[in-house]
């Protein structure tokens, strides 16, 4: 016998949710976080104390998306040089009638990483200026895909240390310092945007050391010894077909650390940096 205790609430399970950006469904999404806040200034005045509050500051929202690399096409790399808009689509039982929209957005960070035993990730975040929250839903299509998962044991790495030392993980990330330009009377919607330079791409590797010796710090002075050409690709499982590739020509070694403890293998962390003058150059060099 069943007893009805009241109104039944449903929930939005992951199969009810999709992320669209610039009209394209983003595949492999593991999590989506969207937020906005109102920068209220609580005003005080002599003779009154509190006299209310007023908005003072940017009206902006933040969106961050975590993804597993499951396709050979990453639409985000083509969206870094311009404005994006999109939404998280949801609704119980796949009704897809609700959304968290964002407009006037700019990609502000991108990162990719993979360790032994993991699926490679490709995360990004963006800042949206102006309207963020409810909005129009223009696309609800769902296109089934056969995921081509990039796993740690299906990578091809071209590094000066990888052939004789066991690389355990990589991490690549960069931030785009998108600066909105507001003019008097803009009502919180920026007229223009600019990206601060240089743009720094940081790449780090954890290796179990076999032969690798950490370079001498003073050799960084007036020397090319710290400059390396590095590239690596995430391959389709059990194949050498590249899903995604990263190229870091003239990457500068900026930090090294060595760690040795009883019972563990001696490990070394190496961190490299590349600088770019604009987003176009970054996309062309890193993702080509």
């Amino acid at each position: 016998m069943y007893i009805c205790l009241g109104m039944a609430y449903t929930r939005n399970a992951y199969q009810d949710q999709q992320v669209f950006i610039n009209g394209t469904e983003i595949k492999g999404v593991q999590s989506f976080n969207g937020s906005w806040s109102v920068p209220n200034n609580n005003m005080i005045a002599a003779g009154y104390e509190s006299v209310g509050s007023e908005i003072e500051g940017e009206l902006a929202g933040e969106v961050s998306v975590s993804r597993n690399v499951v396709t050979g096409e990453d639409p985000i790399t083509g969206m870094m040089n311009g404005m994006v808009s999109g939404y998280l689509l949801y609704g119980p039982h796949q009704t897809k009638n609700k959304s968290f929209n964002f407009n006037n957005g700019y990609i502000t960070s991108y990162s990719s990483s993979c360790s032994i035993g993991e699926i490679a990730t490709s995360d990004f975040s963006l800042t949206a200026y102006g309207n963020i929250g409810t909005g129009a839903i223009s696309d609800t299509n769902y296109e089934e895909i056969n995921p081509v998962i990039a796993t740690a044991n299906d990578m091809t790495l071209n590094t000066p240390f990888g052939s004789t030392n066991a690389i355990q993980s990589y991490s690549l990330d960069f931030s785009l310092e998108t600066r909105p330009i507001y003019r008097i009377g803009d009502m919180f919607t920026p007229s223009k945007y600019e990206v601060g330079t240089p743009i720094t791409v940081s790449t780090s590797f954890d290796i179990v050391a076999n032969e690798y010796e950490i370079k001498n710090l003073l050799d960084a002075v007036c020397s090319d010894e710290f400059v390396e050409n590095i590239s690596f690709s995430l391959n389709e499982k059990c194949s050498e077909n590249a899903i995604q590739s990263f190229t870091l020509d003239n990457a500068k070694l900026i930090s090294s650390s060595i760690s040795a403890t009883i019972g563990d293998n001696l490990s070394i962390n190496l961190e490299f940096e590349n600088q770019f003058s604009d987003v176009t150059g970054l996309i062309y060099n890193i993702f080509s």
Partner: protein
Amino acid sequence: MNAFFKNMSTSVNGQAYYAESVNVSESIQIEYFSAMGTKNYSAFPTKKPEGSISMSFYITTGEEINAIESGYANTGFSSIQVGPFSTDYALLNSFSVSSDPNSIIKGDATYSYYGQINSGQVPDQMNDTIVPAHGAASIDSMEDFGANRILDFNYSFSQSFDVKYSLGSPSPSKVTMTDATRSMSINNLISDTDYEKTNLTGASGLCNNNEGEGISKRTGCITLKTLCQNRVGQLDISGYIESRSFSASPGGELIESLDITEKYVKETGCDG
């Protein structure tokens, strides 16, 4: 006396202000002397006490601007009340308003007063809710200076007086104005600028021409509005571009800064 921030309501010539901060300070000049053969010293004031009142306030109505502007090039004294303190012998020293596109617009005013400040009853706390002017809703009209849309502005007025006392008089007996200057500094993107119009020598060189492109007086204003689009007031400037500068940050567009200066002469309405 028991007084707190909540008791320090501020007004100029009866016009109330919502002051975010207000400061009153005064001092007196003292001559110390002693004479040969004495083991002590005496002191006497050489001048009446003088002080200054400064306040930073939210701009919520045009009357607030008007009450301060009534002190422009005006040798008549203003009355100021700050909580329990009051003076009827205040002269406006400076007034400034600045804003950027996402900020509440605030004004700063400084007065000098002559004679010791009076003290009276501590006012009760009042209650009110304000809607101040805001940079996001205000409108600039600075095209005459080559700026189509501005990034931010700083409007300021300053003046100085020569205040004379006469023997036997407890209050100043003569006030003459020595200088008054109104100025406006603006920043604008170079892409929003009619560059030729911002040339210091004008588009036609040092000589004036009929189009007003040479060294000629130009006018502009900024209309202050609230986020609800209600008009609060207007800040006017009618002067000359005295200096300009250019700056850019990495990855950014060139920004041109203009400094406009006007020697302020009061419009009295009398031609005779």
